[in-house]
């Protein structure tokens, strides 16, 4: 087999591309530009950390099924961890989003990083919503019977039935978290590949 043939392989080309765009020093950096020194940068990693706690607490809830937390003190505590980590997650994520807006963090070829961040935010809202309607208590009964009108009015209710507990639970614990985690991973890799957006040069004029 010639080296040219090997170079043309999909695997080889993918490896070269990944190595070129995400070399180890970008993936696991040991230095940052000096301007990356503000409290606002804390909220990105806080969002990621809260997501990790959300997923870990969700894993524990999944071990015993969707109704365990109503009858077990430990289950209720794990549910509380799940709730509060979600609240921290959204709090940090919204501040992160506004921070990035005022930095115009899409500059310098970083538009897709912004786009993946917004899609992750919207996906997270859908994930949280399906969690609320999967609680198997009064809250889920009320929220689902109210939310159905909004979703049905768009036509989406034809295939996304918020009154179908089984369907909502599957979306909540499989499809949407998978999407949110993949989107988050892509978002973080984009940040690592492009680096943190530098400050504005004050001489640039607004258009």
């Amino acid at each position: 087999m010639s080296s040219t043939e090997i170079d043309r392989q999909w695997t080889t080309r993918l490896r070269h591309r990944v190595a070129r765009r995400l070399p180890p020093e970008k993936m696991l950096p040991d230095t940052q530009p000096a301007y990356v020194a503000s409290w606002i940068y804390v909220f990105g990693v806080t969002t990621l950390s809260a997501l990790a706690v959300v997923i870990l607490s969700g894993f524990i809830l999944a071990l015993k099924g969707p109704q365990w937390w109503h009858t077990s003190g430990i289950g209720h505590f794990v549910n509380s961890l799940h709730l509060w980590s979600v609240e921290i997650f959204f709090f940090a994520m919204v501040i992160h989003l506004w921070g990035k807006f005022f930095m115009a963090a899409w500059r310098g070829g970083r538009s897709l990083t912004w786009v993946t961040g917004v899609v992750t935010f919207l996906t997270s809202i859908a994930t949280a919503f399906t969690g609320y309607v999967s609680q198997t208590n009064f809250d889920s009964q009320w929220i689902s019977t109210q939310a159905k009108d909004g979703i049905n009015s768009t036509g989406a209710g034809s295939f996304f039935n918020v009154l179908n507990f089984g369907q909502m639970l599957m979306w909540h614990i499989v499809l949407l978290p998978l999407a949110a985690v993949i989107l988050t991973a892509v978002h973080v890799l984009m940040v690592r590949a492009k680096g943190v957006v530098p400050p504005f040069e004050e001489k640039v004029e607004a258009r």
Partner: protein
Amino acid sequence: MSESPDVTVAPWTGPQRPYDIIKEGTIAFLVVAILTIGLALVFSSPDDPQVTIQQWSTKTPIDFAQTALSELNGTSGTAHYGAPYNTASAGQKLGPLTLAKWLGATIPVNTVRDFVLSPLESQPAVPPLSTALAQWKGASPAQRTAWVDAYTKAAGKMTFVNSTVTVPTTAAGPVPVMINSLEQLARSGALDQALVTQNGFYTSNFTLPLLFLADGSYLSDLAQQRHLLGTQWGMMNETGNYPGQAWLWMYTFWYQVPPFSSSTNADVEVWGIMMLLSLLLLLVPFIPGVRSIPRWTRVYRLIWRDHYRTQEV
């Protein structure tokens, strides 16, 4: 469209500072985990028990019976909902667009069959219920309508005495027995089961009991007491004194203001607005003017104040 000023950004050639990404991630995770544990220990989480149809019919028997009647005479919210449950109405419109109607009744619900007849037929065939059901089945549609109309006309004087629903009419054929039997079925707890088991042994679909519950006043009365109605900004509230889905503030905001607060198409209109705003948020980097707001506001000088201070020095 003007050329974006954001495309070319000079790469950073200034000083670097040490950065331990693994250490930062580990510390952040530990801090968030400890904060979460603390919040969970101190504040716990809400868990108001589920409402059953048995509970509803026991606590407010007249409301249940009136709702059962509305399912029979076609005046309930579900009976004239339209898509995806039936074709009784065109549903909400976004301008000329009837989005739900286009997709059709994909989750068919017939309130007479699903909420009244099927649950009653699932019970042992003993008189007077079996006689009433046989009389109903043997009647013409016009006769059934006449019975239901007679019952509906007298339903304003409905009473619930000695565990029996009574309406002062003799022209309603089998309807009084059917409504009263459904009431007894509900109060025994059997209706909760009859509604969810219509799809077989295993089921995780609660569309029917939830629609039935939502057609009555009991569920919404409880929600009102907990400040969960749409008019109470309920979409972002939570049972008890807990933070709810605060991130839905803008979504619920539109329901509080005209013209949406009184629009019969509010749901689809608010969804349309939120979809549009979400799209705008997504496309911020590409929208002239919007993408320049950070430059105009100069909030970034607060974020990078050390950097600019160093430059000025």
